[in-house]
């Protein structure tokens, strides 16, 4: 990549074309009532075929993608207050464990069957485990289901998964650095220690930080938030705790009024860079192996859709919800999305085929889930017609 210098005009032209293509995809997604994430992936894959980003443009896109990953996690942390996290951990532990057992395992098993390295199997487990909270909340908002009885359970499952991911990401990041067993153990200890400490600090001193950050001017608030997120992410990366988790913890620590304001300010930035992140993933993907992974991805989609469905069904049943609501809860949880891709990105060097497999898998689940969620009526009639087991 080095050595290729292009004029500023060309640079802007290339980046502008990429972003315009994304806007087009986003518009199309809105029209057919889907989240744009899967379409961004497709856009990236197509772009990789027709155009070749070079030099400055390529480095801009790859740094932009990293920032996108960080902002995704930051906004996720911002989404929940520490209070909500604690309450949820206490109240919904059992359904969370069921979810983990049912949806992490298929990914790991599939990895073993495909002959992946052990760590790549664990990564694939993460890919199949995480429901996309972004897609879920979009589906719930679009279909006006926030008031439904099963909705708290659906959201609770998402929250617990996100907490589990906050633990999972630094562990995987530490293990992926590799080295001897001792070095890996050392990295793991450092990662967990730093994570535990900063999680504790975020819960304990979040209020102080929030008060300090709450500058009156929106401009100052935006700059100080963005700066803090990047700095903490950088620090986390230097001590091998995964930059994204640093950002997540900053998000958790900010609460109250400042969190509300930051959410509004950072959202456009997140949208921009997250789009770049998904495109970059598509661009970097080894497209040649895509046909080979279609069948495994399809099988994985079928199996993990059923396992997610069981989680939703069971959770809703516990909340006293009837058949139709249970079905809604089950299918709403099917889509995987942004964080599955984030996890697959970690393993790009280890097992290149993980990327295409995840992309195909995310595409399938992200389309299947929202479509099924729309047709809860016919589905429940179909279920009710069958004789009770």
């Amino acid at each position, binding site marked *: 990549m080095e050595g290729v210098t292009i004029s500023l005009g060309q640079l802007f032209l290339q980046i502008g074309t990429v972003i315009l293509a994304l806007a087009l995809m986003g518009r199309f997604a809105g029209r057919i009532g889907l989240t744009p994430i899967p379409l961004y992936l497709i856009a990236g894959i197509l772009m990789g075929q027709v155009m070749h980003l070079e030099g400055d443009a390529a480095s801009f896109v790859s740094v932009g993608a990293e920032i996108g990953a960080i902002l995704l996690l930051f906004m996720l942390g911002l*989404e*929940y207050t520490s209070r*909500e996290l604690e*309450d*949820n951990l206490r109240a919904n532990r059992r359904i969370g464990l069921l979810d983990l057992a049912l949806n992490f395992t298929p990914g790991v098993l599939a990895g073993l069957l495909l002959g992946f390295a052990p760590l790549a199997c664990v990564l694939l487990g993460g890919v199949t485990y995480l429901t996309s*909270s972004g897609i879920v*909340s979009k589906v719930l908002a679009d279909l*006006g*289901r*926030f*008031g*439904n*009885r*099963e*909705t*708290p359970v659906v*959201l*609770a499952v*998402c*929250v617990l998964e996100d907490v589990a991911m906050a633990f999972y990401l630094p562990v995987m990041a530490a293990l992926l650095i590799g080295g001897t067993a001792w070095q890996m153990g050392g990295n793991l200890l450092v990662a967990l220690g730093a994570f535990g400490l900063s999680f504790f600090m975020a819960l304990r001193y979040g209020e102080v930080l929030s008060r300090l950050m709450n500058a009156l001017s929106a401009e100052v608030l935006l700059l100080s938030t963005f700066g803090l997120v990047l700095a903490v992410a950088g620090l986390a990366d230097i001590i091998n705790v995964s930059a994204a988790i640093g950002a997540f913890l900053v998000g958790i620590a900010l609460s109250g009024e400042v969190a*509300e304001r930051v*959410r*509004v300010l950072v959202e456009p930035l997140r949208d921009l860079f997250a789009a770049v992140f998904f495109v970059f993933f598509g661009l970097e993907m080894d497209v040649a192996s895509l046909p080979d992974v279609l069948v495994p991805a399809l099988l994985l989609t079928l199996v993990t859709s059923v396992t997610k469905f069981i989680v939703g069904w069971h959770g809703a049943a516990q909340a006293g*919800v*009837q058949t*139709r*609501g249970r079905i*809604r809860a089950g299918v709403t949880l099917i889509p995987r999305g942004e964080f599955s891709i984030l996890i697959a990105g970690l393993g790009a060097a280890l097992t290149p085929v993980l990327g295409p497999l995840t992309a195909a898998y995310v595409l399938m689940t992200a389309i299947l889930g929202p479509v099924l969620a729309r047709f809860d009526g016919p589905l429940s009639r179909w279920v009710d017609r069958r004789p009770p087991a």
Partner: protein
Amino acid sequence: MPRIEETALPGVGRRFDFDAEYGKRVGVITHRDGKREVFVASREDPDACGQAIVLTSEEAKAVADMLGGSTVTRQVTTLTKEVKGLALDWITLEDGSPFQGRPLGATMLRTHTGASIVAIVRQEKAIPAPGPEETLLQGDVLVVVGTPSGVLRAGNFLNGKPAL
């Protein structure tokens, strides 16, 4: 008063709902960005929202005004949330209170407890900023503002119970 159930919707806000007398579940979702969503459950599927309307916070205030009453409460409750060390309570003048039938000034509440009566609610009607000559009746709900301990003392004092 219907029994209102409150449920947390992590990442979204809170949901308040109750089973309305006409047979369906009715509720309000307070989104964290200030939007309010009013919904009513559907008849064939009581778990689901049949209809929902989303109101901006301004519109929600207007609707609350049209329905009557509750805006005062909401504004006052947000006040207590924002100001630390300030408490507000609704104290019902029970039967047997020493101040039943006596003017408000006779309680000398501020002298005794540091808390003030800022409004009286009598049979769904509010008397804001009552004067000292206002006669207190049994069943009056007194809106008392003060420090948290002052308000607590006021509750005991007004109903003739020993101070803590």
